[in-house]
């Protein structure tokens, strides 16, 4: 057959027409579309009956009530519990993402024992025997005080059990991580006497003067603070925010007052000076002050007159007078302290100076003011039985007042000052300043026991890990604190069977005590932690178990609180930064990350802006005026006396010139050879790697609000 042009075109056209009308093409496209979407490994969630269970979130000191939606026996969603006295329905992103912690790939699934630089699985019985054996040796050597313990908080029954174990063992060395609550207690002790704490009635205050407290950055009890802040508009209340950076709180405030980093104490004293000089104080309140109001007034006029304060803080003298007047004349003013989230480094001078403002205007124990209350005492443990070793050990002096002094002593001494250390709900190797030296101290301590649920920075330094249930798997009492106006105890309840071979740490402590035998075991005669909790919290158990919470106190406490101003009248020295570079590096808080405690969840990390974290680079904020030679979005090397890091640069007009801001809560390393949370790990830098501690003389607190730094193009 001859193929001419005509038949060739005819055939071609025919074929084209045939393909066009044939359904085969469309059918194949459709089939491939369906096929491409039916991957059998895309999960199909199993349906079931819907139910809701109430519990309490214990990821942060906020202690919000939560409602967990379940399908059959699977928890699928965490939401805020309505009508809960702390958060009334709202929830923060970390709590909502709480179920991601349950299935976290970096969870410690069974007890682990370190062998060389590797962890090996070990049974619970062997683990308890091993720990008890090591501890018994310590007692035999006659140095029980060389057992130390660090927990997240003082309050609560699990901390109570740890304290009881240490006491009956013979050690006074119980420590807590710095937290807003611990600072509130220290401040209360300096001005009002021991055994007290401070709370702020933010939901009623008509004027909030916040010295860098990140009221919507996660300070205090976050959801409660969000609510109090949001209702400001309706209540016609005002918020003035004093800090070097335009934080979200500053952006949301009625007025942002930029201040040179680390001079907040001086500003507070400058305001006190104006209030005293212009007779703006509450004379009924000051009449009962002890410690010399005249001495304070004289000291303030000499050192903190507006012009002098203006020089120190960078705020105009006229503005200082104005702020003092507005504050003192407001109907219900309150001055709020605890920079950032309030759980980082703080100086007692600053805390006490700011709280003196509250005392001067007489808002203590008044609606909308600052409440001074006794610490919560809802737990009643039976008397311990003590043997002679325990009595002798407990009488010894503590290694240091705070954990950072313990770290320093461990590193400085050639003899082991601490032989064994328990770590519960705390991650000091991540959240204390100069993490390198903290890790070094941990390596020097011969026997470290971690009770962590996750293979975090501190657990990795442990010799043995006795993993704890996460908060959705365990029973625990959760006392509020962190400046919340109400005192509430919530009950965290298991909403699911434990996913892994973990235990409630309360039970673990009881098992260790029993294995130690003798008077120690006699002090722990409970069958289980559940039984123990019901017993020691019997005073409030009915309402705890029925309602899921118990309100211990509400509203302004009756009566006034004694005020002693001698500490502040003595004009303690202001803490200075380490180093002599030109710029100042300060940590900044971001609600979507977590600075202390657990790492942020994959969901939370996902919400973080690309101006905070880009690929694996942390982005630092700097004013374009300061960023000479740097490019917005470019990389740079940030150097401090403690270390240096590769960073990306973000020009931010909300940053005070001369200051570099680095977000807290990145740079986690929740990974090892065979378990890793890659969604959260190895992203950015831990700001605590770059800032070293600066101990405030007198208080002994680590008060390093920042560090001198330099930055140059990488």
């Amino acid at each position, binding site marked *: 057959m001859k193929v001419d042009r005509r038949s060739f075109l005819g055939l071609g056209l025919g074929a084209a027409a045939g393909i066009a009308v044939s359904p085969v093409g469309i059918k194949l496209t459709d089939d491939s579309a369906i096929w491409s979407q039916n991957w059998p490994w895309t999960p199909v969630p199993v349906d079931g009956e819907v139910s809701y269970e109430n519990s309490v979130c214990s990821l942060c000191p906020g202690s919000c009530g939560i409602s967990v939606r379940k399908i059959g026996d699977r928890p699928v969603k965490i939401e805020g519990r309505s009508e809960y006295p702390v*958060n009334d329905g709202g929830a923060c992103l970390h709590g909502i993402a709480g179920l991601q912690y349950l299935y976290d790939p970096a969870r410690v699934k069974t007890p682990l024992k370190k062998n060389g630089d590797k962890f090996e699985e070990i049974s619970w019985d062997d683990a308890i025997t091993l720990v008890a054996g090591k501890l018994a040796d310590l007692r035999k050597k006659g140095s029980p005080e060389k057992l130390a313990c660090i927990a997240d908080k003082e309050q609560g029954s699990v901390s109570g059990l740890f304290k009881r174990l240490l006491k009956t063992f013979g050690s006074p060395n119980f420590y807590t991580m710095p937290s807003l609550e611990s600072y509130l207690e220290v401040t209360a002790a300096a001005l009002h006497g021991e055994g007290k704490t401070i709370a702020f009635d933010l939901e009623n205050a008509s004027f909030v003067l916040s010295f860098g407290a990140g009221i919507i950055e996660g300070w205090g009890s976050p959801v409660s603070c969000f609510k109090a802040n949001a209702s400001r508009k309706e209540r016609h209340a005002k918020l003035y925010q004093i800090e070097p950076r335009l934080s979200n709180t500053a952006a949301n405030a009625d007025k942002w007052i930029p201040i040179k980093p680390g001079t907040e104490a001086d500003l507070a004293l400058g305001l006190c000076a104006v209030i005293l000089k212009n007779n703006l104080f509450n004379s009924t309140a000051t009449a009962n002050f002890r410690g010399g109001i005249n001495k304070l007034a004289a000291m303030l006029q000499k050192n903190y007159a507006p012009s002098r304060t203006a020089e120190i803080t960078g705020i105009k003298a006229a503005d200082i007078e104005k702020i003092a007047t507005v504050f003192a004349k407001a109907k219900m003013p309150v001055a709020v302290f605890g920079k950032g989230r309030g759980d980082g480094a703080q100086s007692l001078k600053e805390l006490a100076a700011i709280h003196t403002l509250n005392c001067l205007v007489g808002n203590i124990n008044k609606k909308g003011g600052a409440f001074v209350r006794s610490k919560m005492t809802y737990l009643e443990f039976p008397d311990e039985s003590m043997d002679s070793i325990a009595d002798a050990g407990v009488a010894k002096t503590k290694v240091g007042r705070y954990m950072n002094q313990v770290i320093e002593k461990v590193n400085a001494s050639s003899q082991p000052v601490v032989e064994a250390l328990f770590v519960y709900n705390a991650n000091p190797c991540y959240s204390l300043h100069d993490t390198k030296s903290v890790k070094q101290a941990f390596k020097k301590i011969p026997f470290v026991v971690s009770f962590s649920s996750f293979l975090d920075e501190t657990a990795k330094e442990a010799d043995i890990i006795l993993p704890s249930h996460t908060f959705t798997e365990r029973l625990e009492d959760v006392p509020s604190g962190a400046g919340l106006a109400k005192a509430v105890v919530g009950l965290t309840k298991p909403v699911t069977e434990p996913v892994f071979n973990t235990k409630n740490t309360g039970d673990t402590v009881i098992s260790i005590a029993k294995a130690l035998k003798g008077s120690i075991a006699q002090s722990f005669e409970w069958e289980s932690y559940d039984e123990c909790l019901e017993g020691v919290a019997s005073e409030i158990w009915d309402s705890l178990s029925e309602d899921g919470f118990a309100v211990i106190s509400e509203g302004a406490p009756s009566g006034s609180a004694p005020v002693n101003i001698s500490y502040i009248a003595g004009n303690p020295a202001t803490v200075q930064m380490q180093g002599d570079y030109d710029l100042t590096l300060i940590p900044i808080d971001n609600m979507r990350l977590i600075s202390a405690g657990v790492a942020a969840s994959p969901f939370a990390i*996902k919400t973080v802006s690309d101006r905070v974290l880009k690929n694996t680079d942390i982005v630092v904020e700097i004013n374009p005026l300061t960023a000479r030679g740097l490019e917005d979005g470019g990389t740079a090397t940030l150097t401090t006396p403690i270390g240096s890091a590769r960073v990306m640069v973000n020009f931010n007009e909300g940053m005070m010139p001369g200051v570099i801001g680095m977000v807290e809560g990145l740079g986690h390393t929740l990974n090892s050879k065979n378990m890793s949370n*890659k969604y959260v790990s190895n992203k950015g830098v831990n700001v605590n790697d770059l800032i070293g501690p600066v101990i405030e003389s007198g208080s002994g607190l680590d008060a390093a609000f920042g560090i001198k730094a330099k930055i140059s193009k990488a």
Partner: protein
Amino acid sequence: MKQENNKAHKFGMVIDLDKCTGCGSCMVSCMSENNVPFKEDESNKKDSITWMRVYKLTNGKSFPDTEVVYLPRPCQHCGGKGDHGHSPCVSVCPATATDYGYDTGIVSQIYTRCFGCRYCMGACPYHARYFNWWDPKWPEGMEKYLSPNVSPRMRGVVEKCSFCYHRYQAARDQAYAEGNKGEIAEENYQTACTTACPAGAIVFGDLNNPEHKVHQIVKPDPHPDTMNKHVVGKSRNPKVFRLLERLGTNPKVYYLSEREWVRKQGDNYLAGEWDKIKNHHGSSSHG
């Protein structure tokens, strides 16, 4: 069962930007409610699936006059020109995978119909739509927290905010079961972002129902805008605005702010244009 109640709803939202703290609770609540996956690196925001995304706005002034406001952006559930249901995305979808619900005002997304052409993503002026470039993958065991109310999506389809449509279905079923003939109480249908917001910045409800808070705040104008006949439902509250309102997409998400510079950022204006329209807030009739 025959549906006796056929009164059309028009579900919408108003977000108070003065209350919004940028905390991200709405984003996480949305992800957790709707089985949104996550991957190792989510810092490339173009491929990071966030049905609800919080943007940061600044007034562009230098230190210390800078101001910052956060703007949460769900799908705007556009009614299209004249509010007739011709949303930009619905108009371009060749597969009818996204459709306008005339009974609810909600723009749906049917994953099994979508074949991934992404025309809708190009058409959406709000970047509210996301493409699944990869199959979702949860760490071992974590798929146990997935909710059966929303199907996990597969590679190759587009997804977006549904105003938690499954919650609407549940509320509607509940209303019928209780003999309310489909009359859904305001509190029975609320989106996951609304209930999660710790600042109470998000208000959700039926824009057609004068009893609902969202209607009372927005006060939608029942007449077409006198300056642009394609714009319907313009707010008569001078503090309320919509994003790119003059396009006539007629979004059902409204924003509220006391600050003028924030309201101005809701659209792009030529020099002098803003001053001409900033005091124009719809017709004054129909109180």
